[in-house]
C-alpha cells in the first residue's frame, strides 16, 4: 500500500503483542509514511493505544508483556540489541490522551526534555523553549507567564504545552493517543490545525475516536478491530469507498 511511492518511516511487520496471555495485537503489518499523518481508528479496546505505544517501546515498562514481529524505523529494527531505548523515545515523541504537564513552570516543562538530554546552555534552552511554544501555537498566550505553574493553564493549553514539550527534543515522529478526547471543541480545532502544520516536518501517528477528526487531519487511515488491522488506505478512500464491509459499518456508525 504505497501508491505515491512515499518514503516509509515506520514499518510494523507481523506484529503480535501480549499482555500476559491476552493477545492485544494480531499480526499487524502496516507502514507509516514520512511527513504524513496516519490515523488509527477502531472500537474501544481494539489495540490502538497498544499499537502506538509499541512504536516508542513505552509498553516495555509494563510487566508481563511480550512482543513478536518487527518494528522498523528508517529501516532499522527498534528492538535490535544495539538500540538505546532512551534514544528511541527521544526520536519518537508521544503526546498522551490526558494532558500531563509536570508540576513545574511552563518554561521548565518545555526545558525538561532538553535538560535530561544534557543541554546546559541557558541561552540555547531559552531559544528552544520559545521555538517549541511557537511550534505548538502557544507562545502568544503564555509568553508573559513562562514562570507560572503549568497547572494554571486551561486543558487545551496544557495539551498544546505537552505538544511543545514533545517538539522541544526534536523528534522525528510524534505519536498522539487521542490528544483531543479531554479538551473542548475550540481547543480541539487548535490542536488539529497544529497537527496539519506538524506534518511538514514530522511523521505523525494519531489515534482518534472521532471520525471527522481522522478525516480532517490524516492522509492515511488504519482501521483496527479486535487487535487486527482490518484496512489501511488513503484516508479519502477509507471514508468514501472502503474495501471492507467492517470498515464501512464502523465509519458509518453502524457499530462502535
Amino acid at each position, binding site marked *: 500500500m504505497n501508491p505515491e511511492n512515499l518514503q516509509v518511516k515506520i514499518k510494523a511487520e507481523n506484529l503480535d503483542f501480549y499482555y500476559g496471555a491476552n493477545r492485544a495485537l494480531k499480526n499487524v503489518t502496516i507502514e507509516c509514511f514520512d511527513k504524513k499523518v496516519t490515523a488509527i481508528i477502531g472500537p474501544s479496546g481494539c489495540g490502538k493505544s497498544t499499537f502506538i505505544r509499541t512504536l516508542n517501546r513505552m509498553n516495555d515498562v509494563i*510487566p508481563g508483556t511480550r512482543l513478536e514481529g518487527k518494528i522498523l524505523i528508517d529501516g532499522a529494527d527498534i528492538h535490535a540489541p544495539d538500540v538505546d531505548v532512551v534514544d528511541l523515545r527521544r526520536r519518537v515523541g*508521544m503526546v*498522551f490522551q490526558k494532558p500531563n504537564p509536570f508540576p513545574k513552570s511552563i518554561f521548565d516543562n518545555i526545558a525538561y*526534555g532538553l535538560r535530561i538530554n544534557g543541554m546546559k546552555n541557558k541561552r540555547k534552552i531559552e531559544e528552544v523553549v520559545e521555538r517549541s511554544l511557537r511550534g505548538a501555537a502557544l507562545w502568544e498566550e503564555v509568553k508573559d507567564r513562562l514562570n507560572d505553574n503549568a*497547572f494554571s493553564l486551561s486543558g487545551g493549553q496544557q495539551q498544546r504545552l505537552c505538544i511543545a514539550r514533545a517538539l522541544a527534543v526534536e523528534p522525528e515522529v510524534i505519536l498522539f493517543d487521542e490528544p483531543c478526547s479531554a479538551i473542548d471543541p475550540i481547543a480541539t480545532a487548535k490542536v488539529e490545525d497544529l497537527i496539519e502544520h506538524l506534518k511538514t516536518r514530522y511523521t505523525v501517528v494519531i489515534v482518534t475516536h472521532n471520525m471527522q477528526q481522522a478525516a480532517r487531519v490524516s492522509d492515511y487511515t488504519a482501521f483496527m478491530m479486535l487487535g487486527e488491522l482490518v484496512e489501511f488506505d488513503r484516508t479519502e478512500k477509507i471514508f468514501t469507498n472502503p474495501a471492507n464491509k467492517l470498515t464501512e459499518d464502523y465509519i458509518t456508525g453502524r457499530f462502535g
Partner: protein
Amino acid sequence: MRRSTRKKLVQAAGFLALRVAMGLVLAVLVLFLYDIGRKGGGAISWEFLSQAPRRGMTEGGIFPAIVGTFLVTVITALLAIPLGMCSAIYLNEYARQNRLTRLIRLSIRNLSGVPSIVYGLFGVILFVNALRLGTSILSAGLTLGLMTLPWTITASEEALKTIPDSYREGALALGATKWQAIRTNVLPYAVPGMLTGTVLGLARAAGETAPIMFTGAAFYLPYLPKSLSDQFMALPYHLYIMATQHHAIQQVRPLAYGTALVLIVLVLGLNMTAVVIRYRLRRKRR
C-alpha cells in the same frame, strides 16, 4: 414527607455521635496536656534545662538526658531516613510487583507492629554483642533506627504512590532514563510526603524507653557522652526511673513531671514539623 424527616433525624443523630466521639478524644488529650503542664510547668527553669541532675537526682536538671535523646535521635534518623527512602524507592519503582514483593511488604507491615521491647532485645544481641558496639549511643540509635525503618519504608512508599504515573511516563517519553525520571520527576514531589511520615516515626522513636534500656541508656551519668560509643542518659528512660525506680519517688515527682513536659514538647515539636512540611507541600502543589 415523613420519610425525609426521619432521614434527617437519623443524619442529625449520626452527626451528633461523631461529634461526641471527637469531643471525647479531644477532651482526654486536653486534660492530659493540662495535667502534665500544670504539674511539670513549675519544674521548668533555665537551670532545669541546662544542668545535670544532682544529689542522687533529687535536684538539678535534665541537660544530659536532652543531649542524649538528641544524639540518639540523630543516629536513628541517619539510619532510618536514607535506608527507608531507598528501600521504598526500590520497592515501588524498581521491584517487580509479584508474590515476593507482596511478602516483603507484608513482613514490613508486620515489623512495624512488633513490640518495642523485642527490638530492644534484638539490639542487644546484634549491636551490643555480635557487632561489639557495647551499650552505647550508637547501639541504641541503631536499634531505634531498625524499629523506625518499617514506618519510614511504608510512609515513603505511600508518598511515592501518590505521584501519578503520568509524571513517570511523560518523562520516559521524552527520553529520560528510568532513574532520571524518578530523580527529576518523582522524588521532588514525593520527598516532602516521605519526610512527613519519617518525622512522625522519629518522634515515636524519641519517646521510646524499651529499645534503649538495654542498649545504651544509663540510669545516671554525671558527665555528657564524649563519643558515640559512650553510654548516655535519655529523656524517656530518665522519666521512667524518676517515676518508678527512684529511691525517693514522692520527692522527685515535680522533676518527673518536668521531664515529661519536656519530652512531650519535643515529640509534639517533631510532629508539628511534619504538619508544617505537609502544609507547605499542599500549598506548593496548587
